[in-house]
């Protein structure tokens, strides 16, 4: 598959700074996120890649001391403007977390949660269709179709994470943010999630934060390297891994630090 660079990016950030209670965490980051692409954020731990990810659907709002400046747009709309409704934003920009966090409800209710709060299903059969479609897309349907009323917390770690992905896609987001989605999982579960990311790519803009360079190389088309709160280099994944322009990127990729 070749890279297709669309005329206008799905999300774009310009000169973004984030600070926690005065301490800067992200400095002057500008980046474009494209539709139907997987973008990987890599970098050593503490480099700010997760912090930046959380600014993309305003999850930083839940931390009172966090302050975000600069412009971030979704389809050209400023997501930090007063006119932007955070509830709609988060429905359009979904998120999957580092540790699987299913709600202590049934599998069905976990997936139905988003459509229900946003009023996306007109009827019970409608809702069942959404749940089934989401679970199928998340590659979980065959494993759970006979026990939809079991608790979501009773699943294995990898299944829980795919349930969280199903939960995220049930509201038809345009962008899916994944914050180290495999870091709590074993290699087999990781492979399944990576496969899933690959399949989902055609429908959404996906951003994956990872500290695992092989994973970035495997799943992404574009890669951004963060270091000490700055975006060091951003480009096609192949270029970053085979021919990095920056010295710091090269050192990280060859394992000089990290």
């Amino acid at each position, binding site marked *: 598959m070749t890279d297709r660079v669309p005329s206008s990016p799905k999300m774009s950030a310009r000169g973004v700074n984030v600070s926690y209670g005065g301490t800067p965490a992200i400095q002057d980051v500008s980046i474009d996120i494209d539709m139907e692409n997987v973008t990987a954020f890599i970098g050593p731990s503490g480099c700010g890649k997760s912090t930046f990810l959380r600014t993309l659907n305003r999850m930083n709002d839940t931390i009172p001391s966090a302050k975000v400046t600069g412009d971030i747009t979704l389809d050209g709309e400023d997501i930090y403007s007063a006119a932007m409704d955070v509830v*709609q934003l988060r*429905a359009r920009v979904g998120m999957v977390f580092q540790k699987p966090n299913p709600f202590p409800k049934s599998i069905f209710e976990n997936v139905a949660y988003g459509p229900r709060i946003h*009023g996306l299903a007109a009827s019970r059969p409608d809702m069942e269709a959404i749940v089934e479609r989401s679970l199928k897309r998340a590659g979980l349907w065959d494993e759970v179709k006979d026990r939809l009323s079991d608790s979501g917390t009773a699943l294995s770690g990898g299944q829980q994470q795919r349930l969280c992905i199903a939960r995220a896609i049930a509201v*038809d987001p*345009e962008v899916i943010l994944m914050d180290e989605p495999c870091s709590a999982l074993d290699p087999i579960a990781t492979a399944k999630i990576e496969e899933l990311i690959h*399949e989902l790519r055609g429908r959404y803009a996906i951003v994956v934060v990872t500290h695992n360079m092989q994973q970035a190389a495997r799943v992404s088309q574009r890669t951004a390297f963060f270091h000490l709160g700055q975006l060091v280099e951003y480009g096609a994944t192949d270029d970053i891994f085979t021919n990095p322009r920056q010295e710091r990127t090269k050192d990280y990729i060859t394992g000089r630090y990290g």
Partner: protein
Amino acid sequence: MNSARTPTDWKGTAMQARIRRRYRSERAFKLAGLAAVILSAAFLAFLLVTMAWNGAGGFTRTEVALKLDFPAMALPVTPTQLRSPAADLALSGAGLKNAVETAGEGWVSDSAWMKVRDAIKADPSMLGRSQVIWLPASPAVEAEMRGGPDAGLEVHVLQSRGLVRTGFNLDFLTASNSTDPTAAGIWGALKGSLLTMLVTFLIAFPVGVLSAIYLEEYAARNRWTDLIEVSINNLAAVPSIIFGLLGLAVFLGTFSLFGHTIGPLFPRSAAVVGGLTLALMIMPVIVIASRNAIKAVPPSIRDAAYAVGASRVQVVFHHVLPLALPGILTGTIIGMARALGETAPLLLIGMRAFIVTPPEGFTDPSTVLPVQIFLWSDEVSRGFIEKTSAAIIVLLVFLLAMNGLAIYLRNKFETRW
């Protein structure tokens, strides 16, 4: 992968209306939460203001200047009698009470004659002349001075002549109980409370802290320690009145062991019985708080002490206990505050006696401040409403100080590691 993606129309009118509705319920919910907090705060404020409003009067007293013509009273007492210890008896036997009441004409309180008696004892020569003495005013005059109903005594006339004054009532803090609201004070009850608290502290603190140390540092995890732990947790939630029944049955010796009553171990109404009862009540509070404080001391400190060859007792008493002490003290203060405000168990063990003289020791009959409040609240006389509220203010001041100290300690020493 079936069915094509149908993008959600976020801008559609239906969806926009739905989002507006969701935000409305969000605001309503948040307001409901705020209202709950504000109403709770308002209740506290209302309670405190009511008490302060009613109680302010308890700390002031109206006095009337009364001219007493002692030669005209012709009290049959001799100077020798006045110097003897039986002077009180002699003066009341001589009809001083009636004489003062007659002279007071409803202006002075029922207990005013005792003031006169004390004045005569201090200066026996008074009996040979007429003398102006400031005496506590009767409840009716007191009420009129505070804007109450007209007592029919033309108070303002005397007031304009400077014969009525209102001032701080020091007697309220130094006197003991009395049937006359103008003479009643809280010192007796306060002293009873202090004695009771002392007994409570001396029993509950060492036993509570020591058992916490045992449970945290020594006890092996087995059925017995589980049993002790469950009992302590449950004791903390047993209604206080049950401890009153326990105190009644055990300490007052009505508990029949092997078929015969074992006679009173302690006199009824004594501070020592109340203290023991309350000690049993707050011990679990102290144990639980101490255990949490000891648990919070990181194992690395214990390891470090063991590594230099300290014995178990030395590790506990030199390292763990000092570090846990702020938490232990916080829990102890909270427990003691609870004991200080407790009423029901003390009612049952009989600390509700009418105590005119402050207790001198742990075995003297005594009462405590909350019980005094309860007893006064039952009095019909209007003057006791003020006294009750004033006593509540004194009690709340003590409790606020103790709770404030506990909160301060907790915030100051909160998790340093």
